[in-house]
């Protein structure tokens, strides 16, 4: 549950930043003679002109994605917390890491890079390159998912069933939920690819590509943490968390 503490600190800092940006603290009624009914700090969804750098409000879809990723982060934080708490029990025996996971990781990194590149291409309006990169991203993500299934097959073939040890069960649980998360992203990516072929509205296409890019970086970051957990690289951190709790 210490992991949840870290998660809350992160969310809290975002909330505080947002409240400050929206000018909740401003005591405008104290400013004598201010007849500005709708002036600075009063306009909506737009940052104060004085805070300059923020500029135009982000599109609703981007804010929506941010909120959704916060929820997803909450789910993964809770799974991590559960992983570390359960790990302390003496019956815990980590399964060996299927070697294909390294290849899968490479696929996911490639996919993330391809999307970042696609985002640049979308900004430059380089249509041919954008389409190619989107296809590469989708293909490498597909390879990642197939590779994860392969890893499951490997584990089961060697007798590491979900029921035989909680560590195995966590392996299947974490990879399954992460896989589902990526699968959801692939649906969005498919719609973006569809848009890239019929693109009439360039700005909408650019936003879609940008959102996919953010999503994929998130998926990759989560995967790297999960990989570290499964490889036992974070055991010391887990032990620390348990110590704090008991």
């Amino acid at each position: 549950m210490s992991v949840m503490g870290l998660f809350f600190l992160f969310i809290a800092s975002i909330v505080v930043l947002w409240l400050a940006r929206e000018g909740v603290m401003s005591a405008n009624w104290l400013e004598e003679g201010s007849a500005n009914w709708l002036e600075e700090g009063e306009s909506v969804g737009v940052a104060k002109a004085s805070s300059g750098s923020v500029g135009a409000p982000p599109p609703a879809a981007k804010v929506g994605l941010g909120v959704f990723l916060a929820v997803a982060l909450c789910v993964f934080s809770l799974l991590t917390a559960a992983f570390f708490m359960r790990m302390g029990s003496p019956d815990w025996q980590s399964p060996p890491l299927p070697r294909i996971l390294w290849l899968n990781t490479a696929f996911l990194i490639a996919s993330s890079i391809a999307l970042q590149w696609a985002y640049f291409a979308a900004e430059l309006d380089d249509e041919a390159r954008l389409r190619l990169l989107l296809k590469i991203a989708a293909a490498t993500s597909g390879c990642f998912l197939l590779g994860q299934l392969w890893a499951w097959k490997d584990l089961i073939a060697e007798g590491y069933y979900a029921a035989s040890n909680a560590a195995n069960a966590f392996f299947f649980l974490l990879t399954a939920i992460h896989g589902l998360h990526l699968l959801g992203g692939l649906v969005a990516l498919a719609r973006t690819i569809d848009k890239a072929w019929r693109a009439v509205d360039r700005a909408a296409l650019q936003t879609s590509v940008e959102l996919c890019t953010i999503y994929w970086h998130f998926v990759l970051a989560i995967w790297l943490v999960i990989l570290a957990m499964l490889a036992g690289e974070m055991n010391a951190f887990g032990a620390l968390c348990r110590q704090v709790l008991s």
Partner: protein
Amino acid sequence: MTDATLSDATVAGEHGVPPAEVPELDLYHPHSWLGKYVFSQDAKYIAIQYGGTATAVGLLGLVMSWIIRLQLAFPGSFSWLDANLYYQAVTMHGMIMVVYLLTAVLLGGFGNYLIPLMVGARDMVFPFVNMLSYWVFLLAVIVLLASYFVPGGPTGAGWTLYPPQAIMTGTPGHDGGIILMLISLALFIVGFTMGGLNYVVTVLQARTRGMTLMRMPLTVWGIFAAAVLALLAFPGLLVAAIMMLFDRLLGTSFFMPAMVEFGELKNTVGGSPILFQHLFWFFGHPEVYIVALPAFGIVSDIIATHARKNIFGYRMMVWAIIAIGVLSLIVWGHHMYVSGMNPWFGFFFAVTTLAIAVPTALKVYNWVLTLWRADIHFTTPMLFALGFLVTFTNGGLTGLYLGNVIVDVPLSATMFVVAHFHMVMGVAPIMVILGAIYHWYPKMTGRMMDERLGKIHFWITFLGAYAVFFPMHYLGILGVPRRFYELGEISWLPPSAATLNVFITVAALTVGAAQAIFFFNVFWSLRHGKPSGSNPWRATTLEWQTAETPPGHGNFGRELPIVYRWAYAYSVPGAPEDFLPQNAPPLKGEHAT
């Protein structure tokens, strides 16, 4: 409606104000009857769908409570009422009321109806996702109800679903019931997340021009904070449900320790039931405030409107909502005082729990101070709001007792706890929901509900609820345990305890049946209610200033309103009437708020 009728306000010349800078929403225009009334993407229809479904399943929860009460008052009198049915009734009553009724009505119902109207938006920002949210919720309800028709019936594990007993043979509904319950909860959370995204992003992005955060009505603040809280808390339940499904279906041991069942060693080893409790209460405690915060907000608006006075300490009220939301995420351990945790943890959770009393008490004081020397109109919504004030304070005070480890440990397994949480999160939010329906019904239908029936309904509900739950505290202090199917002979319980149980049951049956008055009123007033006009309560908030009543698709007709002041400009000196709508142009010499 054509596109031209949905353009934003362009009153630049009139008040020296540029047009509303709200991006035009891509409103979906339904072409068929099905698209308009069934698969509607209009938040107002979705709200009514949410509310109707939740109320229907809530009536089932009410029947379940009757079964519980019949058994407690007359043990052994009904041959059909066996232990399995009793435990199933306890479980389903709890789960339905907390999740499928209260959460769904307050966020899915009032959230959908009021957020776009009150912040001056045309609709939610993602109308399609919003529609999907309702249909996934409906699916969750259907899966939940399906558990009545599988062999073994619904689960009887208690609404907390504690493992290992929730999935062991011998617990009612361990075959199909528990599986369907877990699937239904997971679906509910998926559906809620879709809705919650909408509530949060709409408040963040779609407010009309001039509607700053500190001009939002407290209803919107309450629902907004509750939605954020729910988005952060429900994942706890989701993770717990998925892991328990693994335990039940694949035989994993996330939560299952080494166990012997019917003389046979089970295959599980080392699992941690306490881990489940952490995950469950990580959701379970914020859930109390997911229900309470919208209620706080709604009650503030009802009190201010019907007392014709501005809410006392608006900013304090907002910060109290935020403080309660933040604190409620770090108090879940107070549900686990008896789980044998480290005493220091008990200390930590007791401190955070008691700390919540500060912002909460602040809100109660502010409500009372709003009423102080106000022009109180004892309308039905106002009566329910006052009823909430009393029941919530009562339930909150017993919460202070139970928040202390040393008091909680002996009381934890008694009826005192049942009385406490029913008072604070059962009766109090229901009072607000009923009051809010009486308050906003004219906007939803264009007709008033019958006041006389409303008052009869209020007094029976209010006094009846007290008759049910007030004596229950006494039973708890006597030591009457909760959860038990039958008490038998217990030496320390006087015979009067059984008599009191009969009294409570009679009151419970009466209050439940009296809700028929309310339903009659709702349906009768649809056709025969007095026409209400657009603003029968002479309220300031934007939903009362719409061109049409009930508001059409797009909410505000041709022009979005522009907001000039907060939502509580009642009895302003020098104003032509005793209220100034949020979108009325500034008066001469009026101070900006």
